[in-house]
């Protein structure tokens, strides 16, 4: 077995908002909540994944979700993932697989081997589940295979897989022509989940409660959208560094009053900051978009480094897993399960119509273009995490496509003859490379060297931008 040493404690990232600063204790609370629930044994606990539109079903049935990606992320942020990754490797799993999955599998194996939590497990550790709900979500194969691997150490824990497809973007086809079929299929999948949970818990689904929770989630979705749009202000009151905290209520606490209240408070805080002219960066020189990729959880202080150079991040595509419901063209229904399925389809097809109107565009690229304009973006930063194929494969392609179809920025530069001439430049972009939790993939010196060079490019554009 590989040596199981803990790494040095990371530096804490400075947050711009009080709301973001309050997230750490909140996460700790729900991790310890799962441990308490395990000890009490009154509720069933389920391993599961984010962005499946199934939280309402869990909560309506009093099943406690254990977000396994979240726990792996916590291990990464605490720089304490390596010993679990090494354990998974020693089981014969390659380091090039999803490191969230490796961390979780390594942890599960260790916990089951010991019959108790591994020593000094982050925030008390990840509780053993009663059931596991996986979901492939089209591209992410670890979301199907992870729990199958973990089941080797927990053969008594059943797995239920829900399949949640959505139509692929096709320029010559209206997705509404086919989404009815998808809807029927997803509804069947979600009803299957309900039946499985009823069987496991011995309780019947309370559909009135489910309807209330779905309504609460919908209201939270719209509130998040309104709140995040406040970040369009100059200077922007909140950046992506903070959004990597505020993703917690979006992704792990949906369908709870606490998540709704959190965004009521955050919205109020942002409005107050805007009124006072307070930004994430006081002297905001450059406005950047985090244009894709999960963050390096162990290196969130890189956002502070960007800030120290006058760069703020008013918007990010990562973890903004909501879209305004009133702008979604989805059919109305009183059946909460049917609504969940429509909301799923509405979210994933949200940019389809706009993308079709722009030659050469695609939904992901269209979102970048819209947000460049809405948030007055000067440059794009992406992160290629080597172990995540699902979300990271197309990032460079998106930048290439953006460069092809989006209007270049006019610049006035001094030519060789000493006279000013107008030239056009593409929006600058930076691709950072490391991983979500594997710290061995990361070099702070190299990363910051790249950031410095990127800032120099932004400064050159800023100084030469034509009116």
């Amino acid at each position: 077995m590989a040596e199981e040493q803990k790494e040095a404690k990371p530096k804490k990232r400075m947050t711009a908002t009080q709301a973001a600063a309050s997230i750490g204790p909140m996460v700790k609370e729900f991790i310890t909540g799962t441990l308490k629930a395990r000890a009490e044994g009154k509720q069933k606990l389920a391993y599961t994944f984010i962005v499946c539109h199934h939280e309402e079903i869990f909560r309506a049935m009093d099943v406690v979700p254990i977000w396994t990606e979240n726990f792996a992320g916590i291990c990464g942020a605490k720089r304490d993932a390596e010993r679990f990754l090494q354990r998974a490797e020693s089981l014969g799993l390659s380091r090039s697989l999803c490191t969230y999955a490796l961390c979780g599998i390594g942890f599960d194996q260790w916990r089951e081997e010991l019959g108790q939590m591994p020593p000094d497990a982050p925030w008390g550790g990840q509780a053993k589940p009663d059931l596991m709900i996986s979901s492939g979500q089209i591209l992410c194969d670890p979301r199907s295979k992870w729990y199958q691997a973990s089941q080797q150490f927990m053969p008594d824990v059943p797995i239920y897989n829900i399949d949640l497809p959505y139509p692929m973007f096709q320029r010559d086809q209206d997705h509404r022509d086919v989404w009815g079929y998808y809807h029927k299929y997803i509804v069947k999948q979600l009803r299957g989940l309900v039946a499985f949970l009823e069987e496991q818990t011995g309780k019947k689904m309370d559909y009135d409660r489910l309807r209330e929770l779905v309504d609460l989630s919908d209201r939270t979705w719209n509130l998040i959208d309104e709140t995040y749009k406040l970040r369009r202000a100059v200077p922007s009151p909140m950046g992506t560094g903070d959004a990597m905290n505020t993703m917690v209520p979006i992704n792990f606490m949906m369908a709870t009053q606490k998540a709704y209240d959190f965004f009521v408070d955050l919205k109020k805080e942002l409005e107050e900051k805007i009124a006072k002219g307070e930004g994430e960066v006081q002297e905001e020189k450059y406005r950047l978009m985090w244009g894709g990729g999960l963050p390096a959880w162990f290196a969130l202080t890189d956002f502070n480094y960007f800030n120290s150079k006058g760069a703020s991040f008013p918007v990010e595509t990562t973890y903004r897993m909501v879209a305004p419901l009133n702008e979604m063209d989805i059919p109305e229904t009183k059946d909460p399960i049917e609504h969940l399925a429509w909301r799923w389809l509405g979210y994933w097809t949200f940019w389809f119509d706009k993308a079709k109107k722009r030659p050469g565009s695609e939904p992901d690229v269209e979102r970048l273009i819209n947000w460049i304009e809405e948030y007055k973006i000067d440059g794009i930063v992406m992160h290629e995490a080597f172990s995540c194929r699902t979300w990271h494969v197309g990032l460079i392609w998106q930048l290439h496509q953006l460069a092809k179809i989006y209007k270049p920025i006019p610049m006035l530069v001094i030519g060789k003859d000493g006279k000013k001439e107008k030239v056009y430049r593409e929006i600058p972009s930076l691709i950072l490379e490391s991983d979500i939790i594997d710290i061995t993939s990361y070099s702070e010196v190299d990363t910051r060297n790249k950031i410095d060079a990127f800032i120099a490019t932004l400064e050159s554009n800023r100084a030469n931008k034509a009116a």
Partner: protein
Amino acid sequence: MTSYFAGIDVGSTMTKAVILNKGIIASIIGPTGPEQRRLANKVMEEVLNRAALSLKAITYIVSTGYGRINVPFADKQFTEITCHAKGIIRLFPKAKTIIDVGGQDIKAIKIDATGKTIDFVMNDKCAAGSGRFIEVIAGTLGVPLDKVGDLSLQSRNPAKISNICTIWAQQEVAASLAQGIPISDLLAGVHHSLADRICRMVNRLKVEEAVIVTGGGAKNRGLLKALSEQLGHEILVPEEPLITGALGAALLGKEIVEKAKQNSTPLKTKERILEEIKIL
């Protein structure tokens, strides 16, 4: 009174320094090494000796490269990307793309007519594609590093080296050598493999001529040939491809001084004492 400007580029493998007034009056290239990184003052001392100048005669000093923060007497630091761009546009006014094949990384930089960076990519995660790759292979084949390029040009049938990982390629080359494949063919194969690796990264940018190659890799004619073929562009190389970063640093220093004069603003400089860095 003549103004002098110094640029010092502390790279991962080599440390380079340039002293400039209207043109380069002295330059030096030496291995960085574990101690050299702490002793940027020694490199500076040597280049000053070559220029027959004292440190006090230097109006402005700019440091660059990975070890730029380890130069306590530098008045300002810039990234090597900014400095390469500035140095190259001085040498090649029509330059649009720079490929720097350094000791332990490769960079590609797109620049505008004034030497400002428009876009860049860097490979810093892996030795594949860097000068280190060639050093390792040269060691395996027992060929002096400075002979590798020319020897590879004698090849009539370049070997196929499929591995881009330095360690695996080393094993592949050793195995091919055992099979009796000529060294020139192996080296040509290695250069093609290396050029392929570099092109994969460089092609993330839109490569435009003039394309300039700098760094230690620019001294290898075999690599330049393979790179030119695979990129489909003519490649130009500075007379001394290792000092372009240091040259750019010195030029940036000159610009800072000129701007301060123009705006009648005071020039902030460090005390002119040569000493090794105290905190690493």
